[in-house]
């Protein structure tokens, strides 16, 4: 009897406690736009700070933050300091859903910026658009961001993987005619988008083997063996850096040396060299296993130290983000942050979420910046950079060559040369609009 009573008392106590908790965190609604005040604006982002995609990519958001700190130190944008809350999602879509809800509903961010990854970010696009939260410049080239009518708040930034695949496919068709081609691709919209671009430019008979892998796997031996036994002489990787490293180590142990092409997201030489060393437990050093690999980019290579954009970002990195090497990931984070500042400048002083979206729709296509080619921004097109330039790993550095090529991510659209030149950055290093 005593126990029964004490149990019901415990239950009562539990309910009372729940009530107290509830009273403590009652809902609050504000009339003005959340995440922005006269002196600050807050964005949130989800990044793989640990997990399979972390090597290299974990540098991106801190580099963006470093650029924002530079802008903040020079007065911010319309007097507002830009804050970036970085949440670790470990490249796990379930975590992405959790942290993005936390950023929007609890941290009350103004928008999401540079959310990284295709399998991850696809799971929050619906939530962000139905909540009318600006989803700026996703760090992924999935063709799925490019839908301004259905997803008005989501903007891609880097060229979509189909554009990249088409340019590499055309290069293979021109310079390696008649060669057998193998493709290793991540089995999601990233790899599938790239594969679609390759298939668009090469005859079906040329592609002798297309092997998917799952993000999170620890071996690529089955895939590389299959590509090797199909007799592929040219191999294209749509991989994140860790799988570029694992793939090349596997090919090396199999004594397989095809001509390699790698998507720009998976080739940063500093990152891949570090991973090769880790994965091989110190046996592979340097970039020998990726030397001579063809790739492409839409930003200048970090090796071009005379490029004024590279010099600017290197200077900012040394002051605000000194602990990491200056590699492609850092350049990426800074260049993307530069674009966000352009958007904030264009959106004007009295800022709402709709203003920011409209600013990109109306002005984005005209922006010049660190990119080699123009953006494809309009009310319906939200796809980011319109093309790439080919590059090659030479002496452990990516060396860009050939014309800048732009195209549409749709099948059959021609690839055209872009002849515009890249203007130098403003002296302040901060876009004025």
């Amino acid at each position: 009897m005593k126990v029964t009573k004490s149990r019901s008392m415990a239950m009562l106590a539990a309910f009372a406690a729940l009530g107290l908790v509830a009273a403590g965190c009652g809902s609050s609604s504000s009339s003005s736009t959340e995440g922005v005040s006269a002196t600050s604006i807050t964005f949130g982002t989800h990044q793989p700070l640990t997990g399979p995609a972390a090597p290299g990519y974990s540098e991106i958001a801190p580099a963006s933050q470093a650029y924002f700190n530079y802008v903040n130190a020079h007065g911010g944008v319309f007097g507002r300091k830009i804050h970036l809350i970085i949440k670790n999602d470990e490249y796990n879509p379930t975590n992405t859903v959790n942290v993005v809800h936390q950023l929007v509903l609890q941290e009350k961010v103004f928008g999401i910026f540079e959310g990284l990854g295709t399998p991850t970010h696809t799971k929050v696009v619906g939530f962000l658009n139905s909540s009318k939260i600006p989803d700026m410049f996703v760090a992924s080239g999935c063709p799925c961001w490019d839908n301004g009518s259905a997803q008005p708040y989501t903007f891609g930034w880097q060229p979509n993987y189909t554009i990249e695949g088409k340019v590499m496919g055309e290069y293979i068709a021109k310079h390696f005619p008649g060669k057998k081609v193998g493709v290793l691709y991540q089995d999601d919209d990233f790899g599938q988008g790239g594969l679609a671009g390759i298939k668009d430019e090469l005859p079906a008979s040329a592609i002798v083997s297309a092997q998917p892998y799952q993000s999170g796997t620890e071996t690529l031996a089955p895939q590389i063996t299959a590509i090797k036994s199909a007799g592929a002489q040219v191999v294209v990787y749509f991989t994140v850096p860790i799988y570029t490293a694992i793939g090349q180590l596997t090919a090396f142990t199999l004594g397989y040396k095809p001509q390699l092409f790698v998507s720009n997201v998976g080739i940063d030489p500093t990152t891949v060299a570090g991973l090769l060393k880790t994965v091989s437990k110190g046996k592979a050093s340097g970039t020998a296993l990726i030397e001579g690999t063809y790739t492409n980019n839409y930003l200048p290579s970090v090796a071009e130290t005379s490029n004024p954009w590279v010099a600017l970002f290197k200077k900012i990195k040394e002051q605000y983000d000194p602990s990491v090497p200056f590699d492609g990931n850092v350049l990426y984070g800074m260049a993307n942050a530069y674009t966000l500042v352009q958007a904030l400048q264009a959106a004007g002083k009295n800022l709402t979420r709709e203003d920011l979206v409209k600013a990109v729709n109306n002005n984005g296509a005209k922006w010049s910046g660190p990119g080699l080619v123009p953006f494809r921004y309009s009310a319906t097109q939200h796809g980011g950079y319109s093309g790439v330039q080919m590059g090659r790993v030479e002496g452990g550095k990516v060396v860009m060559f050939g014309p800048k090529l732009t195209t549409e991510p749709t099948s059959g659209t021609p690839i055209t040369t872009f002849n515009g030149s890249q203007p130098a950055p403003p002296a302040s290093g901060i876009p004025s609009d």
Partner: protein
Amino acid sequence: MSRVEARHEVDRPTPSGAPSRGGEPGALRWWRRHTLARSLTLLVGTALALGLLSELLNEYRDLQLADAAYYFAVLAGLSVLIGLSGQISLGHGALMAVGAYTAALLIGNEHWPLVPALIASVFVTTVVGVAVGAAASRLRGPYLAGATLAFAVGLPGLAYQYSGTFGGANGIAINPPAIPSALGSSFPLERWEAWIACAGAVLVAFALYNLTHSGVGRSWRAVRDDEIAATVSGLRVPRVQALAFTLSAACAGLGGGLLAVVLQLANPGAFPLVLSFYLLAAVVIGGLGSLLGAAWGAAILVLLPNWTHDLAQSFSLPDKVGANLPLAIYGLLLIVAMLAWPSGIQGGVRAGAGFIYGAVRARRAAGREIG
């Protein structure tokens, strides 16, 4: 374990025909005897309390309430399995995955409505639970833990192997549940998700409360305490154990289905191996064999990762340390709970409440004697 058990024995309804206790009012006696009446009151009361709670909370807290509710469904089943029937399972994360993928496939691809899809989740997971439970009833202790662990290790691999059906690492995304128009256009989606998940949790609590206070619950306890004695009393031990496992699998299936609805996603990343460990740790820390203990466990599962994240940030720990901090803290909590409160948080609360009640009664009795 035996301390927990002793309390349950006392809590059993008085068998009919037993001499009524002296001085107990008739209404209270009726209340004690009628499990269904008690559980129905509990059902309505908890549902009302949760509904009120969801109104008071902001959208993010509503989402956490929804998370806690689907974890509760799983933990309650696991708690009954371990605490009452005496079996252990390290495979409940995988059973959740079965429920989640069933719901996601049916809602996403076949466009089933919510409730039938959730019922199907429970059904499919129950079928899997029968198979695993049949094997489980032949195994004891560490062998049982090992077998269920193998299940948790192996099952997510299917999502990669048959990526055409299950979407590989990308998973299956589904649309958010439609909010009934009667609730108005400004009703937040997160609150509606909390309602759905809480409804599932309350139903699980209702079912388990009745079962554990019935002959089934008694047969579980009998089997747990002494299999030979239970056999001699006419119980078929393997069948009793398999029933407990199947039932707890059904709860895990519902929890998994609700997870898919709340996250609008089923992907292997939601069901890593550590999930099964987290679930086990949460029921032990919360209090084995008790529904309120499962509620404490669910609260810990939802709140602890955020707290540890804030902790890691405020001490600016490296990301690699921060990401592994929750697991370390679960381990620590588990050790502390084992040392301080072997019957978990709920055991601690119960002991505290019992102490206060005892003190009050002693004072009252003393007062009466003097008067």
